[in-house]
Structures are given as structure tokens and as C-alpha cells.
């Protein structure tokens, strides 16, 4: 039982952590939370099944295509739902525009793909039982993402440019950094991470349009608990969430497991609105 909780928990937790990181990357680029993180995850699974199962492409090609689609989705999100809203005085409109956009894509998927969960292809035929590749593919993907982002932000110029526009967009622009292009690139990156999460987790979560709302919420919990924009926090919180959820499923079962997660989430947020590792908000006067 314990091994089951650990394998499933860490694997699904890795997916949640990656969605959390998707939120974070979009947030650091625009100071806006986008409702599209769950949508990207859902598309990763659905498009993966489409390319590999229905169209018969090899897994690697499917993966690359999915990443490309994710990047395109991310870019479209920025252009359609984020950029126009950032210019207006009413900052919180991004909540609505990204929600609307995510709903649009989800409904379209439901109508074209179908409302039932479709199977996701087995990616690599190795591993048995609890060591099956469907468990450690998400963990691998998550590790690659986290390490990759760390290297990007700290070691490369473009990564540091990302951080600069997140920190202070005006100053960055004054220094000549192309703010819009960098933000586009950030959203493309977020799109890739989100769709990678859905693709890697596809064998567990199946290709299902309803994954959008599931991932939207469960992917947000790591962000809330780990602190906005804090990827390490999202990683830890995501893995813990996966383990907690599976343990609850096993011990309590069914309905009460999801209620448990929500209740814990709300209580933690009320006690520490900025999360365990987050910083308090900046000056507003």
C-alpha cells in the first residue's frame, strides 16, 4: 500500500508541481495569474493521444509536436488574453480574460474530441507494476523542468532578462530589454512546460477534457502554498500534495479525499495568504 501511495503520489504530484511552475512562469512574466495552466496540461494529454494514437506518429515526434503546440498556445494566450488587459487600469481583468480563453479551448476540445476520457498511449515499454514508466516519466519531466529553469534563470542572459522584466518592467525597458518579446517567450516557455506536464502524466490522467479544471485547481495549490513565483516552493508543495491526495484516497477514500484537499488548502491560505515560502505584497500606497 505504501509503495502504491508513494509511486502514484510522487508521479501525480510531479504533474501538479509542473502545472504550478507553469502558473509561476506566466506570473513572473506578467504579474498576472492565468487560468490557462490547467488548459495547457489538458491539451498535453489530449494532443499527445491524438498525435500518437490516432495519427500513429512515434512517441518522440508526438512529444515534440505537443511541446510546439503548447508553445503556440502560450503565445496566443499572451497576445489575446494577457497583453490587452495589462494595458488597462483594471489589472484584475486578466483573471476574466484568461478564464474565458481557457473555457473556450476546453469547450472546443470537448466538442471536437469528445467528453469521455480517451486512453493515452504507453510511451516506453519498460517497467512493471509500481516501477512502470508511467510513474517515473512525470517525475523525470518535472526534474528536467526544475533544473532547466534554474539554469536558465541563473546562468543564461535571457533567463536573467526574464527575471529583470518580472522584477521591474519599466526599469527593464529603460535598459533596453525588449519587454514584449521577452514576455511572449516566457509564455511560450510556460506553454511548453504545461503541455509537457499533461503529456508526461497522460498515462495516469488519460486524455480527458475535464482534466483542465482538475489541473487548474490542483496545479494552483502548489503555487498558493509555495509562494507566488517560487518554483522550488511549487515543487515541494506539489509533491507533498500528490502524496497527501493519494494517502487520503487510500485512507478515507472517494469524496472525502477531495474535500480534505480543499479544506486544507483554504485553511493554509487563510493562515498564511502568501504561502509558506512567499513574500508579502509590496507597497500599495
Amino acid at each position, binding site marked *: 500500500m505504501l509503495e502504491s501511495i508513494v509511486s502514484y503520489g510522487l508521479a501525480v504530484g510531479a504533474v501538479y508541481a509542473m502545472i504550478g511552475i507553469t502558473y509561476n512562469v506566466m506570473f513572473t512574466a506578467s504579474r498576472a495569474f492565468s487560468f490557462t495552466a490547467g488548459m495547457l496540461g489538458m491539451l498535453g494529454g489530449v494532443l499527445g493521444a491524438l498525435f500518437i494514437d490516432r495519427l500513429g506518429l512515434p512517441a518522440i515526434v508526438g512529444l515534440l509536436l505537443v511541446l510546439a503546440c503548447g508553445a503556440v498556445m502560450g503565445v496566443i494566450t499572451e497576445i489575446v*488574453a494577457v497583453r490587452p488587459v495589462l494595458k488597462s487600469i483594471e489589472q484584475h481583468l486578466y483573471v476574466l*480574460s484568461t478564464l474565458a480563453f481557457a473555457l473556450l479551448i476546453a*469547450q472546443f476540445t470537448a*466538442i471536437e474530441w469528445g467528453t469521455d476520457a480517451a486512453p493515452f498511449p504507453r510511451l516506453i515499454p519498460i517497467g512493471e507494476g509500481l516501477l512502470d514508466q508511467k510513474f517515473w516519466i512525470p517525475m523525470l519531466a518535472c526534474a528536467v523542468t526544475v533544473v532547466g529553469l534554474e539554469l536558465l534563470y541563473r546562468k543564461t542572459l535571457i533567463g536573467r532578462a526574464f527575471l529583470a522584466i518580472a522584477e521591474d518592467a519599466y526599469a527593464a525597458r529603460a535598459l533596453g530589454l525588449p519587454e514584449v518579446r521577452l514576455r511572449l517567450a516566457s509564455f511560450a516557455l510556460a506553454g511548453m512546460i504545461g503541455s509537457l506536464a499533461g503529456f508526461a502524466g497522460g498515462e495516469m490522467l488519460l486524455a480527458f477534457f475535464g482534466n483542465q479544471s482538475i489541473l487548474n485547481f490542483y496545479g494552483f495549490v502548489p503555487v498558493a502554498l509555495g509562494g507566488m513565483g517560487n518554483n522550488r516552493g511549487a515543487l515541494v508543495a506539489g509533491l507533498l500534495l500528490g502524496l497527501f491526495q493519494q494517502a487520503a484516497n487510500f485512507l478515507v477514500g472517494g*469524496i472525502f479525499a477531495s474535500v480534505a484537499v480543499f479544506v486544507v488548502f*483554504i485553511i493554509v491560505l487563510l493562515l498564511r495568504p502568501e504561502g509558506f515560502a512567499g513574500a508579502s505584497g509590496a507597497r500599495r*500606497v
Partner: protein
Amino acid sequence: MHLRWLEGRLTFLLLAIAAVGLPLLDDSYAGVIATRACIYWILISGLNLVVGYAGQIAIGWVALLTLGAYTTAVLTAGTVTPEISPYIALVASGAIGVVAGVIVGLPALRLRTFYFAMTTLGFATIVTQIALAWKSVTGGGIGTPGPVFPWPFAPGWGFYYFCLILAALCTWMTANIASSRFGRSLIAIRDAEVAAEASGVAKPALLVTVFVFSGALAGVSGGLFSSLQSYITPDAFTFDLSVLFFIAILIGGRGSILGPLLGTILLTVLPEIAAPLVAWSTFLYAALLLLIVLLIPGGIADMLDYRNRRPLQQHREIVPQPALLPSLLDRPAGGALELSNIALAFGGVRAIDGLSLDFHSGEVHGLIGPNGSGKTTTLNVISGYYHPQTGQARLNGATLPFGAPHRRAGFRIARTFQTPRLIGGASVLENVMIGGTIDGRGTFAESLLTLPRHRRDERMLRERALQALTVVGLETLAGVRADRLQHSELRFMEIARALTLRPAFLMLDEPAAGLSAEEIRRLGALIKAISRAGTGVLLVEHHADLIFDICDRVTVLNLGKILAAGTPAEIRSHREVVSAYLGA
């Protein structure tokens, strides 16, 4: 002077006539749709105050519909409790709605927008899961039958009239709130929270009140919903419904009653007309929402707001009338406000380092210094936004507590801001009326029902605000939307808002920024007159001429410390001040 909600009165009347006359068409299908629209509107009218006015992104509101529906259904079914009359059950649903509204709403006080939106979604899911799991009460997946109301409100046209009456009542009540100081305070919290606090609006209490009211409406709506459906199961309360409620308000336009009402009717009727599109209905809702947000964030209400599209007079001049001040500020003089030994550090940065300052009634005290010297920070400390590590603020000897900015208005301390904080969508008059919020005596309930005290408050506030606008010279623009004003007019509008509080102490943060030379001159005369009428003025400014013209005393800050203090003449020739700031 008309406030926006009154504009649609004719439309309301026409809607009412159409609604009352509907049974004449003898089409019970239209009756079902119209009843549904009324039920949704009862919920949406309350949610409108939360989303449209207070600006809280409460997406998971279907949870309250669910709770209200099950409460009424279970109580009238007689399976768990003895059978209760549907009317009493409806009241019980309202009560449950109140409790749930507070539970859902409380996080709004602590959480940012997006986080709060997520918690409402989580709450909606929890409620559905509980409805599924608690089989013994709710019937679980099978569900439970809804109540049947007795004659004269029996299913069919009788029930339709019942819902219509309640819907009309809700329209009236929410419209009353909208045009009361509570409605204005809600919008102020949404668009100009800092200014709202400075005017004495207590956000927590007001938000909780609104969530209580809104929750009650949603609960009642749920009870009616269960009767219309005849039978409820957890699957009937979909996320799509939450989206519908939300979009109706957004399409209608925030800060309006008529807009969301039209939006509700539109969204209820649309799927029936566009039958072949029914599979795409949620897709279309989402597309509609996206278009609204991007293109017409103001919604239908904005589209209908022809009055605010009439061109304004060009080359307007602001002509203050300081002579009218004494009748506005007709109250005893305030005394003295002093800061002693304030030290405030942000992380490693010492913003203020041992500052002692005072100003009193009847004087204009200038505060100048280079950028970053701590001028605005000083104002913010006095306003109570910051908690200094050491030092005290005292008003006539009594200590002023820090960290409670909304209490300052009670001490008659008013201020303006470096960047004007305004409610763009409201009229200039409404913006200014916010200044006098704390002088309203009526409660939320009295405003709900437009009882006499509410009417007295409104009259008083409107008169006072008009007076203040006349004093600053903007009375001709009273009915204009604030976001159409020029920058200089906004600065004067902020002063009018501050004056509406009839302040003992007025703090001005760079009011001359962006003004023309003539406007600065008039501003100076106005400020001087304000002080001579008994108010103590603390003026932060960069325009040296203005400072030296009207100030009685000047303090110079540099790097958080006082560099010099004294009369304008002394400061002007002070060597260090000249070298650090003024230049030769």
C-alpha cells in the same frame, strides 16, 4: 442630479410591464423561461453587489444556489425533518445562504483576487461533493424532489408571479444600495481602495455585510430553483451555471443594476432561441466573455450610457470659489497634529530617520525635499498605512494608532494622493460624495429599504459634495464620468473629496503636479483659504514658488531626516537646503 441607476427607470418600467403581461400570451413555455430568468436574477442581483460593485471575483457562486436548493427541498420533503411550509423553508434557505456567503466571502478579506477566485471554485466543488455523499439527507445521487408552493403561487403562472415579485423586490433593494453610500463605498473599494480607506470606509465590515446579503439572496434563489425544477440532483449544479451568473454581470457592466438585469435575461433566453447552437452554448458564453473583457469592459451598461458620450466643453477652466469655504467647513477648529521621533525602515532602507513634525489649524505647513527623502512616506505614516518602528503621532495630545488607516477619517484627517485615486466609472459627484461617507448615519438595512434616515443621509451628502465641488470650481462637471476629466481637474476633484469630510487636518501630496501656472495660482489661493477657514494643511510639493507663496512654515527633508525647518524666508536662504535641493 441623477445617479446612473435612475437613468434606466423607463427601461425598468417597460420590462415590468412586459413581465406582468406575459401570461396574456398563454404560452407556458415562455412562463418557464421567464420564471427561470427571475430566479437567476434574484441570485445575480446579489452577486452583482459582490462582483460588479465590490469587484470580488467570486466564480463559484453556484455553491450557494446548491445549498439553498437542497435546504428548501429537504425541509419540505419531510424525510429528515417534519414537513415544513415551503415559505418557511425558503427563509431557511436564505439563512443558510447567509452563513455560506460569509464562509465563502471571508477569504476575500485576506486573499488576493486570483487566490480568492480559486477558493470559491474549491468551495463550489466541496458543496457538490457533500450533496453527493450525504445520501441520508440529500438523497445523494438520486436527488430529492423540490417543493410545490400552494395556491396562489402554484406551479405555472402563480409561481411565476411569486418569482417575479421577489425579483422586482431584489431589483429595488440592490438599486437602493447602489445609489447609497454603501454602493459608492463598494465601488471605491474596488477601484480606489486606498482612497476609500482614507475616507473612512471599513472594508471588512462592508464586505461581510454584502456577502451576507448576497448569500441570503442566493439561498432564496436556490429554494425557488428547486421548485421550478421539481426535482434536484447534484448534477444540475454545474460549473457552467457559475460561469453564466458571472458572465451576466460582466456583460451587463460592473457598477450597474440594469446592465446585469439585461444580461441575465439575455443569457437565459439565448440558448432557447439558438437551438442548433446548444452544444456550443458554453463555448459561446466564454467567447462572449472574452470579447466583453477585451473590447467593452464596461458591458451593456456602458453601451447604453449615451449621456457620457456627449462631448464635454473644450477649454474648460477651473475657477475655485474659496469664499464659500466657511459655510462648508462650518465646524470647530481642530487643534494640532504632531509627529515625534518617527523612525521607519523598509528592510534595510531607512525611509524616515528620527522625524519630528507638527502642524495645526489655520496654518499651511510645507514639506519639501528631493525625491526619496521621505515626504510621501511621512504622509503615509500620518495616514496610518505604515507602522513606524519608533515614534508616535498625536492629535491634540491623544495618541493616533498606526495601522488603521480607515480610522483617520473619524479624526477628521483627510488627504489627497500623489496619483489621483478615482473611480473612473462613477460621476464626479459620486466620487466626491465618498469623502463624506463616515457622516452617514443610516445602516445598510435602512438603505436597502430607502428608509427616511437613508434619504436624509443622501441629501446631506449630495449637498455637501456639491458645495465642495463649487468651492473647488468643478460644479459644472458634477454629473460627468470621472475618467473623462483632465488631469488637473482630477487633482481638484480629490481636494473636493477631502473637503467633503470637513477635515480638521488636510494633507496634500503634490497637488500641483501637472497643473498650469494659472491653475497653480488658483490652487494656492484655495489652499490658503482652506487653512484660514480653520483647517490645518500639510502640503507636500515640488513647486518651490507655490510653497514659498502660501506656506506659513516649511520643513525640508533629506534622506529621511529633517534638514531644516522654519519660515519660507529662512528656508529660501538656508545654505544646505539650497545646495541639496533648491539650487541657486
